[in-house]
Every structure is written in structure tokens, then in C-alpha cells.
């Protein structure tokens, strides 16, 4: 089995490479990146004979097709802006595709590829980061056991870093988007845009996480779950997170820059050149991310000293009775699921476990065996069912 990981030297892509290299089903992992220096650091750290490094720009279709030649699946770990372009090339190469999410709006556009992928006999699973990904499977687990669904509420709880920790928890452009673009929620059966950093509520996570302040964020689960479970009558769906796993002070500083126009996509002219303020902000802040070697290092904690719990609460009816499922997926290494989920999805795609077409996770993956795969990586899922006495 040969899996191509685009952006394999990136902050999340490197974990996907590490997961794949450690899986006996995988024979070859092609680490594709533009940054060869960082690719070398990642490969040296993982130190697996399965890893092959290649440099290619996904905009160079010819070069990219060569990379895809002979691949059993392509895992796109680059920033989500490339999703549509990469899917086009994978379709042309007839290589199954997976990614880490499309931040709602791009995901919607990706789903429009369904018929073309189906006609070509190619499979694609979207939204396989930590979240989205886990909440979709948690929701599917409950949906399989409920007659109707009233609401799906997702809470992504992350152990807050030290107040003076200025680092970004994952891709700088994605976090800036999540902070500045209006989150979408499904409310009374309609998709509605809300203000960024709104809808605050405290939510109680597994110890030692405890109570964390949660707010709305734009996320892909909200784009697909209400559609996937439309027949069950779903009325409400939202995604909440606690400052994207970053220090509140850091988020407030990014917001200050955004409020003063640094998140603008309108180019500003400098003589004969032009600069997009947002691109400049991303470039200036790109140094504030953890080193890949930190991300690849084993977790500092051991279960049950959890650092992250992704919870989905699904309320609905079973045989006329109100039932609430609470699924909580726990890990001691916050970044691990983001790399592990697409890695497992890529393996399943390569094994032919997904039908041809483009699907969100809840529509094509069986949650129980998937949770079992995660369990091997110390990513534990617990379920609580609340019934009326």
C-alpha cells in the first residue's frame, strides 16, 4: 500500500506521515512538500524506511500526477484552500482522496464532485481531521441507534496553554479564518450565520479538563450533518471550541490585528507590487507555531491525564422515548487525532472500504471499527446514554 501525504512536512501532515509509517498495512509513505528542509527534519525524526520525500507544487498538475502514479490513496494535509484543486488531480489520476476539512464552505463545494467521482469509480472521504472527523463519526454512532434526531451539539475541549503562550495550535491561515469568518449554525432547521467568537457557554469535560468556556466556530461538521441526517428531522447543529486550543490572550491579539484590517483580502498597492494584508499577517505570524519535532514527540501525559476531549451530544427519540447520546473522544496529545484520522481514512480508502463517490465521514465510515483503530493509538471514545426513567 502506497499513500501520498501532501503537506507531509506540515504541522498536522507530519503526524499523518508518522501514523502511516507506523502502520503495518502501509508499505510506502510518500511525503510531499514544498519545504524540503522541513521534510528532511520530519523524515529524520520518524526514521522509517517506508518514507520517501518528494517536492512538488500541487499547482503543477504534470508534476503532481507523477507523484500520484501508483498511489493507493492521497491524503491532503495542506491548507484547505487547495482541496478543490487536489481533488481534480486525484480524479484525473483515479486515486482515492481524503483531507482534514474544508471549513464549511469549501466542503460544500467539494461534495459537488460526488457524481464525477462516482462515474469515475474513485472514492473520497472529506473532513477527516480531528474535528471535523470524530464528531461526524460520533453523530453517526448515535444516529444508527435513534429513530429521530433533534439536535447535534459538538464541543471540542482542549487543555488551555499557559496564558503567555503565543503559539498557534495549527495552521495559521485556518485559525485566522476561523476567527474572522462568520460561524454557521443549523438553527430551527435553517443554516444561519453568527458572529465570530459568539455563543459562549461553559461546558463540562472529562477530568482533568473540567469546565471550559466554549464559543461558536465555523466548522465543516455543521455543513454536512444536518444534510446527512435530514430524514431524521434534525433541527439544530453547532460546533463550539475553546479558543482553538490557544491562549485567550493570543486569540485577542489576532482579533485586534484582524479588526484593524490585517485579515483583509483586498490587495494594497506598493509601487508596482501589491500586498494582501492577510497574507502579510500570516507570513509575520508563521513563526509562532510549535516545531514539528514537538508535534511528533510522544505525549507528555498518559491516560487518564487527558489534554483533549471532543464531545458530541445527540438528542433524539428511540421508540418514542427521549434519549441523549454523549460521545467523548479523549487523547493525551491534542494534535494526534488530526493526523491519525486522515491516515486511517487513507488506509481504508486504499483497502477499498469506501464506495465510489465523495462523502462526509458519517455517510461512508462505520464508526465502531474506526473507533477501535483510534483506540490502538490511545485515542479513546466513551459513550454515555441518558434515558428518562
Amino acid at each position, binding site marked *: 500500500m502506497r499513500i501520498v501525504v501532501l503537506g507531509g512536512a506540515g504541522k498536522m501532515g507530519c503526524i499523518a506521515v508518522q501514523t502511516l509509517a507506523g502502520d503495518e498495512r502501509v508499505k510506502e509513505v510518500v511525503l510531499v512538500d514544498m519545504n524540503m528542509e522541513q521534510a528532511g527534519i520530519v523524515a529524520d525524526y520518524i526514521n522509517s524506511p517506508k518514507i520517501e520525500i518528494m517536492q512538488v507544487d500541487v499547482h503543477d498538475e504534470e508534476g503532481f500526477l507523477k507523484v500520484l502514479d501508483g498511489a493507493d490513496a492521497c491524503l491532503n494535509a495542506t491548507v484547505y484552500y487547495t482541496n478543490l484543486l487536489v481533488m481534480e488531480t486525484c480524479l484525473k489520476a483515479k486515486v482515492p482522496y481524503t483531507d482534514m476539512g474544508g471549513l464549511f464552505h469549501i466542503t460544500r463545494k467539494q461534495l459537488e464532485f460526488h457524481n464525477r467521482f462516482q462515474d469515475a469509480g474513485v472514492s473520497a472521504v472529506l473532513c477527516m481531521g480531528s474535528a471535523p472527523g470524530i464528531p461526524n463519526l460520533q453523530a453517526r454512532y448515535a444516529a444508527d441507534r435513534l429513530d429521530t434526531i433533534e439536535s447535534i451539539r459538538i464541543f471540542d475541549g482542549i487543555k488551555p496553554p499557559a496564558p503567555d503562550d503565543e503559539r498557534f495550535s495549527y495552521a495559521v491561515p485556518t485559525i485566522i479564518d476561523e476567527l474572522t469568518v462568520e460561524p454557521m449554525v443549523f438553527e430551527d432547521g435553517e443554516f444561519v450565520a453568527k458572529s465570530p467568537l459568539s455563543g459562549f457557554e461553559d461546558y463540562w469535560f472529562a477530568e482533568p479538563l473540567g469546565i471550559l468556556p466554549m464559543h461558536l466556530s465555523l466548522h465543516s461538521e455543521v455543513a454536512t450533518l444536518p444534510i446527512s441526517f435530514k430524514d431524521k428531522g434534525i433541527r439544530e447543529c453547532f460546533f463550539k471550541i475553546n479558543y482553538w486550543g490557544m491562549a485567550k490572550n493570543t486569540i485577542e491579539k489576532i482579533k485586534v490585528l484582524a479588526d484593524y484590517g490585517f485579515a483583509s483580502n483586498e490587495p494594497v498597492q*506598493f509601487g508596482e507590487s501589491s500586498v494582501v494584508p492577510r497574507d502579510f499577517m500570516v507570513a509575520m505570524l508563521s513563526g509562532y507555531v510549535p516545531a514539528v519535532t514537538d508535534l511528533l514527540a510522544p505525549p507528555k501525559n498518559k491516560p487518564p491525564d487527558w489534554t483533549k476531549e471532543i464531545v458530541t451530544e445527540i438528542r433524539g427519540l428511540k421508540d418514542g422515548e427521549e434519549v441523549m447520546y454523549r460521545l467523548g473522544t479523549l487523547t493525551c496529545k491534542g494534535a494526534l487525532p488530526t493526523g491519525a484520522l486522515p491516515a486511517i481514512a487513507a488506509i481504508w480508502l486504499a483497502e477499498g472500504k469506501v464506495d465510489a463517490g465523495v462523502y462526509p465521514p458519517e455517510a461512508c465510515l462505520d464508526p465502531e471499527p474506526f473507533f477501535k483503530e483510534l483506540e490502538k493509538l490511545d485515542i479513546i471514545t466513551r459513550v454515555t446514554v441518558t434515558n428518562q426513567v
Partner: protein
Amino acid sequence: MKALVLGGAGAVCSETTRDLVQYSDFDEIMVAEYNLEAANELIKELGDPRLKAVLFDANNYDEMLKLFPGYDVVINGLPWKYDLAVTKACVEVGVNGLDVSTEEEQWDYDQTAKDKDLIFIPGVGATPGITNAMAKKAAVQMDEVDDIQINFAAFRCPAPAPGLLITFLWEFHPKTESRTYYENGEFHWVGPLEGLKDVDFGGEIGKQEVCYIPHPETKTMPESLGAKKVSVHGCFPPQAMNLAKTLLEWGLYDEEPFTYKDIEINSLEMIHQLLLRSPQTKETPVWAYGLVVEVFGKKDGKDLKIKIWTKHPPMDEWGGKAAYYKNIAIPLSIGAQMIARGDVDQRGVLPPETAIDQKIFFKELARRGISIGEEVEWL
């Protein structure tokens, strides 16, 4: 009598031009502007036959030498980088003048100005300007002046005009050398956002956290008012303060050159250019100016504190953004009129607290709606 208003159609100084039209006895008010279209529009709007406009490029020193002669006073409302050139030109051609800021080198022309029987007053705006008169008002009531604490709240957006953005960035620049306070005969340098304390400015501004700001009052008052300690604390609206804090904490004041998108630039310059062009840096919810001066000293052997503050009409009564600009522009106009009328009998290049009779000054401010409050507390 003739007045020449440099930058007289600009964001701040157009309010000076308005004040001159409404209150002054000048026979001619010449608006010297790089943006002649803006000057002509302002003149058309104000409709006063005394107003005239002339194209003026402040970067051309020779142009100053040709333009300035014949005026009774040159009113400099240009960005502070032109302060020195304007002072030098005024002294060279023999014309009185004033401005709203202060460059240390301006004092170098003091003796020449005295020799030529001229007066030039740097810093006749809100702060420096009104604050100097406030400190003087308190100091003259004391036998000894121990401590002058000047506090301001400049409630405006970061970039209402190019010069004001430069001021905003410079005041928090980690390398700004003049951010000092004076104590025991020495100037002590302090970093940006240091010396934090809360000050209640009242009105729409209310209580705000202020920090040390580089300002000329610190330099002039130890000598002019005999103060043992002088400090200036200030703030901008909370969101602008957060911007300054963010730029500092993320190292965006860095001036190390680099190439970005084929542009040779440094971080600070890029930040400056982007802020200048951003629409979001042109707006803020409240436009106002708060000034609170506290002076500690002794009278008849007893310790006392005199607190003086300003009050002005709220923005909805005072023309929105103009509620901020007028606090700078009106003192400039008053100062020019006092010079022209002969209310200033001192000669040289002198600070406002030395040159300006604060009683006349406050009376004129009150006529325009800027009132002064005073509280004396025996300690």
C-alpha cells in the same frame, strides 16, 4: 494683520481655519496647502472673503522662505516632521509662529529669535498646549512644585491622518529615546506601556489606563516651572491600545529589512503602510480629548495637590470627529491670535507655559466650549 495657516485644510488644522474665521480679527487668512482642492473646498464652505489659498509643498524649504515674509504669524498645522524646518524658516525670514508639537532642536533657534524680536511657540495644541497652561495655573499657586503629572486620553482612531498615525506608532516604539520622566535632576528612560495607572477623564472617556508617553512637557517644565518631578501619561481608545500592545508583543516594530513579494521593506514600515491604507484604522466609536493635570507642591509650608481637568461638548454636539480635532486646533488658533494681538510679550522660541498668559488662554478656550475644572486638596 495676516495669518498663514500651513496645512490649513488638513484633518486637524481645518478646525483651526474655522476658528480663525469665527473668532479672529485677521484681515487675511492664507491657507497654504499641498492639497489645493481641499483648501478651495474649505474656503468655499466657510465663505469668508478673508480666506485665500496657496499651493504649498512643505518639503521645499526655499518655498517656505519665499512664502512666509509679510505675515504676522505662521500657524503650523503640518505633521511634526516639518516642525524644525518651519521654525528655522520663521526665524530666518523674521516671522512669528507656532505649532502643535515640539522637536528638541527647535529650542536651538531661541537666541536668534530673541535677537530678531520674534516669538515662536512650539506645542500649542491639546498636549502639549492646554496641559502646559494647566500646569502653569497650578504651579503659580504654589511656593514649591514637587511633582507635575500630566495625563491625557487622545480618543481618536490610529490613522485619521498620515501624521497622526506616525505619532501613534512612534509613541509606543520600543526605541523611542524621548520616552522619559524627570526626577531629581535627571531624565529616566522608560519602555512602552510602562507606568500603568488608572485616570478618570470623565465625560464620554471615563476611567482609562494610561502609561508613560514621550511628550515635550517632561523636558520643558523642570526648568520653566521649577518642578522636581514631571511625567506625562497617556492613552488612546482601548482598541488602539490593544493594537499597540499586539504590535509590541509580536515584535512587529522590528526594523530589520527583508524582502516580501519583491518589496524591500521592514516589518514596521509594512505595518505603517497597511494601517495607513486600512479603512478600519479611520474609525473609532468615541472622538474626544481628555486632559487631567495633577500638581503636587507646597504653599506656606503645607503640602497640597491641585488637580485641573478639561471638559468639552460630546461628539454628537461638537461635530463627531471634530470633537477630538478641536482640542488641538482651537488652542493653535487662540495662540496665533494672542501673538498677533500682542498678548505674548516674551521673545524667543519658548514653551507655552512660559510664553502664554494662561488666564487669557483659558478665557478664550471657554468661549469655544472647552472649560477648565480645578480642585485643591491640602494633604
